[in-house]
Structures are given as C-alpha cells and as structure tokens.
C-alpha cells in the first residue's frame, strides 16, 4: 500500500494547477485591459514568477501573495470590469489563501 500524499503536497499541487489556468487569464487581462489598468501587466508577471517559484521557497511565495493582494486592492475587481477580470481576481484570491501568509524564517 502506498503512503498517503501529505496534505501540504496536495494543497501545493492544487494551487499550482489553478495557477496554470490563471496564467492564461492574467495574460488576457493584461493584453486587453493593460492600457487602462497598468497593474494588469505586473499581476501577470507576478503570476509567472509564482509558477516558477520552487515549492520549498515559502518566503518568496508569501511575498508574492502579499504583492498580489496589494496589486489587486485585496482581490476586488476594478469597478465595471468584465467577467475575465472577475474570474482572475477570484482565482488569485483562492490561490493566495492557499499560500503561506508569513515568511518562515
């Protein structure tokens, strides 16, 4: 019988899978809404950086989670924004909730 997968590993796999889809949404939002919301391009960059961050690097994950919170104003979609923006911010909020909140060191 194989050992159960640790809960932290499962959670990591889940938010990484979510990020895989959010990478496309973030790129779309940056492309379409970048001219009126310059932060959109930075959000897309942070998502890409988060994807590339090693699973063990919790300090960087916590810092990027805080950065996403700042850039999105607490994950509140811009007034009058479209469904793609709402989907992106909702997804980022869920990912941020699964990330470490404080530096481990």
């Amino acid at each position: 019988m194989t050992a159960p997968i640790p809960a932290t590993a499962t959670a990591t796999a889940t938010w990484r899978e979510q990020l895989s889809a959010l990478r496309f949404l973030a790129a779309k939002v940056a492309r379409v809404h970048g001219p009126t919301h310059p932060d959109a391009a930075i959000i897309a960059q942070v998502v890409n950086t988060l994807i590339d961050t090693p699973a063990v690097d919790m300090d960087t994950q916590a810092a990027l989670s805080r950065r996403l919170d700042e850039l999105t104003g607490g994950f509140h979609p811009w007034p009058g924004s479209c469904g793609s923006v709402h989907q992106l911010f909702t997804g980022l909020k869920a990912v941020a909730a699964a990330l470490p909140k404080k530096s481990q060191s």
Partner: protein
Amino acid sequence: MPCADHLPPVDLSRVSATSILSGEHRVILQVLDVVEKLAALALRDQRIPSEHASQALEVLAKFADRCHHGKEETVLFPVLEAIQPGFSPVQMMRAEHVESRAFIRAMTEAVAAGDAASYARAANGYVDLLRQHIHKEDDILFRFAGQMLTPAQDAEVLDGYRRIEHDDMGDGTHERLLGIADTLATTYGVPRASDSQQIMDLLTAICGCKKD
C-alpha cells in the same frame, strides 16, 4: 480546387480568423502528444492512467471539439460557404469532425470500462486523424480562407469566436482547459505551445468585453 502551395501561410503574428484557430491547433497538437503517451502506457501496463486520460478527454471534448470545432463549424465555415457555395474543403473538414467525435466517444467508453486495449486503439486513431486534419486546415483550408475573407468578414468571424468562447463556454472555461493542457504537457514532458509568446498572444487575444 487549385493548389494552396502558392498562397501565403497563416500569419501568426497578427490576430485574425485563421491565426486564432492555428494557435489553438498548437495546443491540440500538444494534447495529442500527451494522448499518444497515455495510449503507449495503457498498452504497456494493460491499465489506463485514468485520471490523466480523463483530463485529456475533457480538453479534447470541450476545447478541441466544442470550442475549437464549434468556432469552425458555426462561424468560419458558414462564412466561407456563403462566399463560395459548395466549398469542398469545408465539407471534408466537417466529415472529419464527425469522425473525431466517434473516437472521443470510444475513448470515453474505454476509460469508463477500464479497457486498456480499446482505449489505446481509439486514442491512436484519434491522434492520427487529428494530426492529418490539422495539417489540412493549416496548410490548405486556412490559406484559402485568408485570401477569401475581407477585413470586415474577418472581424465578423472574430466576433463569432468571442460569442462561443465567452457566451457559450463561459468566462474562464477556455483558460481552465488551457491550464489542464499545460499541466498534462508538463507531467508527460511535452513542450507547451504557450511557451511561444506568439501563440500565447493568440490564445489570449479574445476577451468577452472587447472588440479586437
């Protein structure tokens, strides 16, 4: 039908009715590479890697068929047929879409039954069919389409794609399926189409709230 060789290939550097579909073809080819590996594993182990096979089937059924083939069958092809009634390449492509759905059904049934041999047979049949189908569309049909569509018709087709991607599929669905395709590619060591910035730009070009 004249030869398409003298016509320019689809220009992937700009958003158009044909470049959007060619960009999606790169993702479908990526998933076909994964499915080919799943079929080989199923034959080798006499057991279907069912979680990944089901994920690949979701991408094929919803992204490749419902969304991508949907854009072709309900938006692009009718415009081409209105320009040139009885346009034969379109009729052939429609027939191959029907054939591809039979393979998807066969794979789905094989996964449900845990029948590894049937899964591998259907998966390999699907992969062969779709690779040839995509080659025909990219190198023949879309070259003709690029010459046939006026800028106004091209814009009309793009608006139809927007309706399918956002109104029919729903905001975020397209991206969720692309995410699954990329996760599968990473798992099976297949190159991701979205690592090309040009393809990424095409995959994210259509937003429900904006005209291109």
